[in-house]
Structure formats: C-alpha cells, structure tokens
C-alpha cells in the first residue's frame, strides 16, 4: 500500500467535502445547536431540574389561605415572595380562576399532634407557567411546615438515621451536571457518528455511481482507495469536536483536558468508522448499509453505556478533571482494539477486491 496514493484519495475526498459545502452544513448544525445553548441553559435545565424555576425572583405572589389559623399561614406570609390572604373557599377559588391569586391552600383543623396526617388541599391553575413557579415556592414552605410537624410528633419516631448538616447558603446549581454530564459528551461525540455515516456514503457511492472501476484503473489500489477515504473521515472528527469545545468555551463553559478528550473522540471515531466501512463493503448499497450501521451503532452505544468507564463517561470525567492517568490505559486499549479492527478490515477488503466485480 503506497501512502502517497492513500493521501491522494484523502485529499480528493476532503476537497469534495469542501467543494460541496457539506461541511458548511455540519458547522451550521453546530452553530444552530450552540444558539440553543441559551435555551439549554434556562429551558433544558428547568426540565432537567424543575426546582431551578425557583430562580424567578422579585415578584410577590398572592396565595389564598382558607381554614383554621395555624403555623402554615405565617410560614407562607413570612416568605418575601409569597403573600397569604385569609379568605373563604368559594371566593378564593373564583379569584384564582380570574388570576387574582396564584394558588389557594385549604388547611383543615387537624391538630399538629394528631394521629392522622394533616391534609392540605392545594388549588392551582392548569397550564400555567406561574403555577409552576409558585408551586416550587410553596413546596419550600410546605417542607418547613412538615419539619415542624415532624418534630412535634418526633416522640413517635423509632429510627435514628444518619444526620447531615448542609451549609445555610441556598446557592444551588443544577446546570453544571446537565452540561458536563450529558450535553458535552453527546455533543463532542456527535462528529464521530457523522463521520462514520460519511464513510458509508463515500464507499457506496463509488459502487452505485459506477465510478469505482475508473478509480481502480489508475495506479490506486482497492486498499489505498479504502484507507484514503477512512483517513479523510477521521481527519474531520477532531476539527469538529474542537470547534464544539471552542463554542462551549465562548459560552463560558470551559472544559478541562481538551486534548485528551479529542484523543478519546478520535479513538472512538476510528472504531465507528471502521464498522461503517465494514457495512459499506458488505452491502455496497447506501440504504442497506446505513440502516444496518445505524442500528448497530445504537446497540453498541447502549451496551457501552451500561459499563462504567465507557468512552462517554471518560469524556465526562476528563472534562471535570476527576480522573487520573487511568484514562491513558483505556485510550491505549481503545486504540489497540481499533488496530485489530483495521487489520480485519484490510484482510476483508483484500478478499473482496479479488472477487469478480
């Protein structure tokens, strides 16, 4: 196999990708998703953790309080963001429906030390963003009240659980875990999957458009053609992943160990691309090859994810800096596996290139 011929094919394919501006679409796609990052920060974090909604501050919401006097009234009214009004049930519900109140609580006169639970009825509006916000605030009030009731009834408790004293500051963050634990590994790994789909296109097109014979009539051999294409596909992976990491950095999300992450992505992409090449060589027709390949990738990813220290988890650990030099061992293993696969692929390619076309 002449490396010069391999590089010629690689250059040709990279040129094709550039000329067709297809890579522009890939980058547009990245930009598009990066645009969503503002949305991801607020919207998706909210979805990931509804309590993040409590961040909507600065407004006082009216709560109708129906029923007997109790501690709950002052717990609600003492909050800076809630104001309780003593009312009767019927006008309270009517006001709620007119949006003059954001919620109504009905409190029965169950004594605090009674045998049965205190059952508070909470009326809220359906399909309403304010209800979601108010419910989070009321939840905090209810938790305080629950703790009070529990201490009144503590003589009836029998178990002594582990006790933890959390710091007083209410500063919490849930976006970090979402961004670093889910978004980054998925986004950084996406180029690997795109490239694996690309290798199938490049190989099957030679067969289906009948250009393979022309190509092989030059000095380029079948193996050189194959590896030239694979090289082109691998080459664009780190570029796209690095673009991702830069975009994230521009959004203020700085990832640790970027070089190591790129190495892992390249190693993972080699395995996926070689599997894609196997599918393409076997079927020599895009629809079937893509179908089998994408199903195989889903299976592969699901299996990989059910083991600790899988490539996605390694990217997470690297990006937050909680892994030592263990990852080099795993990277080496991954590279050895892809080397084994590439040897198998070369043998397979050698066999089919001798078959009558």
């Amino acid at each position, binding site marked *: 196999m002449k490396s010069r011929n391999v590089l010629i094919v690689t250059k040709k394919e990279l040129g094709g*990708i550039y000329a*067709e*501006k*297809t890579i522009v679409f890939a980058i547009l*796609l990245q930009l*598009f998703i990066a645009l*969503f990052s*503002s*949305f991801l920060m607020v919207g*998706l974090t*909210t979805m*990931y953790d*509804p*309590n993040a909604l409590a961040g909507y501050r600065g*407004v006082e919401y009216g709560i109708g309080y129906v029923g007997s006097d109790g501690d709950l009234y002052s717990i609600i009214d003492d909050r800076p963001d809630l104001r309780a*009004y003593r009312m009767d049930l019927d006008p309270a519900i*009517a006001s709620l429906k*007119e949006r*003059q109140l954001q919620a109504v609580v009905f409190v029965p006169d169950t004594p605090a030390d009674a045998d*049965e639970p205190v*059952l*508070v*009825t909470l009326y*809220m*509006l*359906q*399909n309403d963003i304010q209800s*979601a916000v108010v*419910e989070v605030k009321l939840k905090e009030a*209810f938790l305080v009240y*629950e703790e009070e009731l*529990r201490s*009144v009834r503590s003589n009836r*408790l029998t178990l002594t659980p*582990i006790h933890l004293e*959390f*710091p007083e500051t209410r500063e*919490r963050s*849930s976006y970090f875990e979402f961004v670093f634990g889910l978004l980054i590994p998925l986004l950084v790994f996406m180029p690997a999957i*795109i490239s694996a*789909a690309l290798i199938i*296109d*490049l190989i099957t*097109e030679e067969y289906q*458009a*009948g250009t393979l014979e022309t190509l092989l009539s030059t000095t380029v051999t079948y193996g050189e053609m194959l590896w030239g294409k694979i090289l082109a596909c691998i080459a664009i992976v780190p570029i796209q992943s690095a673009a991702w990491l830069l975009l994230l950095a521009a959004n203020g999300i700085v990832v640790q160990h970027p070089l190591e992450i790129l190495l892992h992505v390249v190693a993972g992409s080699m395995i996926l691309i070689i599997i894609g090449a196997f599918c393409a060589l076997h079927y020599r*027709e*895009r629809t079937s090859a893509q*179908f089998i390949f994408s199903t195989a990738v889903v*299976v592969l990813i*699901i299996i990989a*994810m*059910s*083991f*600790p*220290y*899988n490539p996605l*988890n390694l990217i*997470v650990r690297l990006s937050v800096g*909680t892994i030592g030099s263990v990852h080099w061992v795993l990277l080496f293993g991954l590279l050895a596996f892809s080397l084994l696969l590439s040897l198998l692929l070369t043998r397979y390619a050698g066999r089919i290139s001798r078959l009558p076309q």
Partner: protein
Amino acid sequence: MSVGYIRQILVMARWEFLRTFSTMGRGILPAAIILFLLLVAASGLTAQSGLHIQDGMYQLGTDNAAAGEMIAGDPRFIVYLDSRPSLLNTRDSYDIIILGSEVYVQDTEKGRAAVTSLEQVFEGYSAFINVQEPDLYAAYPLWIDRIYERSTIDFTATQSGQQVSPIPQREAPEPRGDIVPVATPKGTVPYEPDQLRAEISRTAAQDDTISRYSQVIGQESGSGSFRTPNQLSPPLPFDSIILIFVFIFPLYFTSQFFMMSIMNERIERRGEVLLSAPYHPSAIIIGKALPYFVMMVAISLILILISSLPINTILPLIPVIFFFLASALVIGMLARSFKELSFLSIFFSTMATSYLFFPSIFANVHVVSLISPLTLIILEIQGDSFTLMDYLYSTSLFYLTSIILLYAGSVNFTEERLFSLHRLIPRTIEFISAGISKTYPLISVGILGGLVIPFVFMVQLMGLVLFFNLPMPLSLLLLIGYAAVTEEVAKSIGIYALARILPGGLTWRLVIFGSVATALGFLAGEKLLLFATIAQVTESVFGSVMFLSLQLLWMPFLLHAGCLAVVAVALKVGGLRWYIPGIILATIIHAIYNLTVSGVIPL
C-alpha cells in the same frame, strides 16, 4: 381525480413496494433480526446496570464512615474516607468535605452542583428510612392534595412569555365574576398507609438522573393527586424526550428509505425509464411515497398499541409523516451526492426534531408548546383530550408546508432537473424558478409570496421558542431582528429568482410591480393563515411583533412592498452581488418599523 390517475398511483406503489422489499429484504433481514435481538438484550443490560455516563463526577472526602457508605451508593460520587486533619490539609482536591455531620462545599459551580446532587441523595436516603417508620404519619405528617382549576381568563396575558407581576394588595382580592360554590375538601387521605409507603419508596428510588430519561410513558402515580411536600414538583413533562425516541425516530428512519429511493432514480439516469412512462409526475411521486406512508402509519399504530395509548394519538402524527415524506422528496431531488444527502438530511432532522421537541417541553406550561404536534400527544397521554382548534393550530403548518413541498417536487420531476448536477443553492433557485412563469412573472411572484408564508411562520415560531426564555427586552429585540430577516429573505426569493432567470435581468417595471405583487401575495397569505390558526399567539406581546397588527392593512403592505423594493433596486442596480447588502438594509428598515409599531421607539 380520475380513475386512471388512481390506477397510475397504485401501479407505482406496487412496483416501489416490490422493488424495495424484494431487493433489500433478503440482504439485510438476517442482520436486522440479529441486531434487533441484540438491541433487546442490550436494553435489558442497561435496565439492570443503569447508565454510566455521570459516574465519578464529584470527589467527596469524609471522616464519617456511615455517611460515606450511604453516599457511595450513588455512582456520581467518588468517596474517600480519611481522618479529619488530613482531609483539611487536602481540602482543595475535594468538591465536598463532610466532617462529622457538617457538610463543607467548595465555592465553585461544580461544588454547588455537587451539593445539589448530595441533597438529592440525602433526601432519597431519608425517604428510605422514614418510610420504614411504624407510624407513617409521624414520619410524614403533612400531605398535599393537588387540584388543578381551569382559568376563566385565557392564555394571553400571563402566557405571552412575560411575567405579569400581580401588584401585592393589602386586602384579599374580590372576585369580579360569579362565585361558584366549591365542595369543601375532605380532611382524610383515602389510601391505606401501606399504599402510600409503596408510593414514597417508588418515587424516592426514581428520583435520579436515569429515571428522568427512562420513565415509562404516562406512568400513573399510585396515590392519585396526594403527595408529600417532597414529592411536589411542577408538571414539566419528561415524557417528550421519550416520545421523540419512540415516535419520531422510527418515522424519520422510514422516510430515509423514500429519500434514498428518489436519489436512486437519479443515479446514472435510471429514472429515465420512469419518466418515459405515460404517467403524471405527481402520480409517480405519490405512488412511490405510498408504501412508505402506509409503513409509517403502521409503525405508529403498532407503537401506540404497545404503549397502550388512545388510538387517536395517530392524528397528530399524520401531518408529521406527511412533512417527513415531503422533505425527503425534496432533499432526495436536491442532493448531488450521497454525502450531501446525508448532511442535508441530518441537518433537516435536527431542525425538525427541535421544532417538534423543544415546544413540547412546555406542554403544560405555555401556549407556545401547541405549535408542536407532539404536545397534542402529551396532552392525550395526560388524559386531556385536545380540541379541533388545538389540532388545526398545531398541525396546519405541517400540512401546508408538506403540500407546497410536494407540489414543488412534482413540478420539478423532469429530466432536466433530476439529472442536472449543479451546486446546491443554484439548484434550489432552479427548483423555485420552475414555479415562475416568464410570461406572467407578476402573478407568479405574487403567488410565490403567498406560498412562502407557512415556511416563514415555521421559522419564526422556532425563533419564538428559542428566544422566549431570555429576559424580556432582549428577547423582544432579538425576535424583532430575527422576524425581519426571515420575512425579507422569504419575500425576496421570487425577485431574486427572476433576476437570475430573465435574460436581461430585472426591468424597472418588474422592480416596482414585482415588489407590489409579492407584497400583496405575502400579506394575503399571512392574514389568511393568521385568521385560520394562530390567533392565540398573535395576541401576545411576541405575536404583535412577529405578525403585524391585523387591523391596519395598508401600513404593513407599504412596509412589505417598500422593503422588497429596496432589495429589488439593489439587484437591478448592482446585480446579484448586491443581494446581501440589499437584504441587510431592508431588514434594518423592517426592524425599525416594528420597533415603532410596538411602541419601543416613540413617533
């Protein structure tokens, strides 16, 4: 539609079916079956061992062995047991340190995230202990019965994305309308303690990251509307993520086969035979699409039956199927090579998926969610059936765009277009110019102006979803700019195509009357669609920015015609190179007008 036409469709459908399933079936069936079995096995494996993505994110040091053991149950934490002095010495290498029962947190974003997760772990543990208490109502003394009321005032004010702040009053509010008597709630929980115990254990065990993604659709709570305070959480639907996987991906997948079938006709001019048949192009296209359509409906029905959803869940999926097929047709006809096909289809699928997915997150929270048909499915799962108006509102754009795309496909299903290998953008312009008659250019651009409207709405609604989360003045400004660009680009397509295809370029007559005709078509399309569908959004603050007010017709008309004329003059004077500067200038004018109308810039 004549009998002959239907017969043509059926013949095409039969051949398509035979070709696809006989040639492909034999090759991939064994591999597909093996992979399917592997998939089932793999999902079983994951269900057993959980997803290990976030393992080892946080480092925690403690001298409290019992607490360390409890926390180590969550794989997100790497727990180190050490003595108090050495922990204090190395405290910078931990996100959290627990000394005795005191929790100390690193003052970083990661530290805050770690303590949030730790609180979740601790809550789960407390629930696990509390639920074993013999006296359940001592451990859980407070129960909340959550009842939802329907508002008598509709979405418009509070739902427009802004926070309408109720000015706190000293006195309790007086209802203005009728007071309807409400039944006094009962003071007892109608469940046995054991039932409640089981439910608390279930939700506590479920409160981890994996369950957010793997929750079974529509799982009903075992204790009805009764919750402990800890179980309260706003009803944000996590189902929509699962819905994407369950419904949208298989549909998208199947549409790929259709895309490929169209592409295959173009390789080596194979479709020549097809074109020489005495069949109408639209019959060929519909016939080729029919097997895939039937297959997609069948797949959806099977999925609906498996997840035991009501059968009319299929209704919101039909327009999605149409839309996927229509886009597959156009992408299959536009792409020059396989890799272009792949990138186009990945790009399209991301767009379509976001359009379907992001709004549906807000299914119970905001009216914007209704622009996605998936929201209807979520409502259906929750047991709130959707109305005919809801259906029209969220699906009409899908139906309209699909019809227009199918029309564009069948007009261009000719030898000249199918087998040419021009670049993507010139090809797209060629496709559009097929709809422009050189003899009646004015009427053509007018109709084109009306036809782009559904696409403009889709793109603008996408922007609405994107921006409505941002703080108020910023989101409004961004939306104004975004809406202006979209409309200007969409309007100018006809004029641009004319400038390209006419031998002598644009004439001054075309510049003036072309702008007028396009503006007329655009305005007519806009108003028609507005009245029919999205009145709900238009009444909100954002709506008034995007879709100019309904009362005054001559002002928006002058705006549309004027801005387009700016682009047309740029094209006439400077040639095609001046298109982009023209668009920018028109956008600025448009945005200033919108700012004035919405009262940001005083007159």
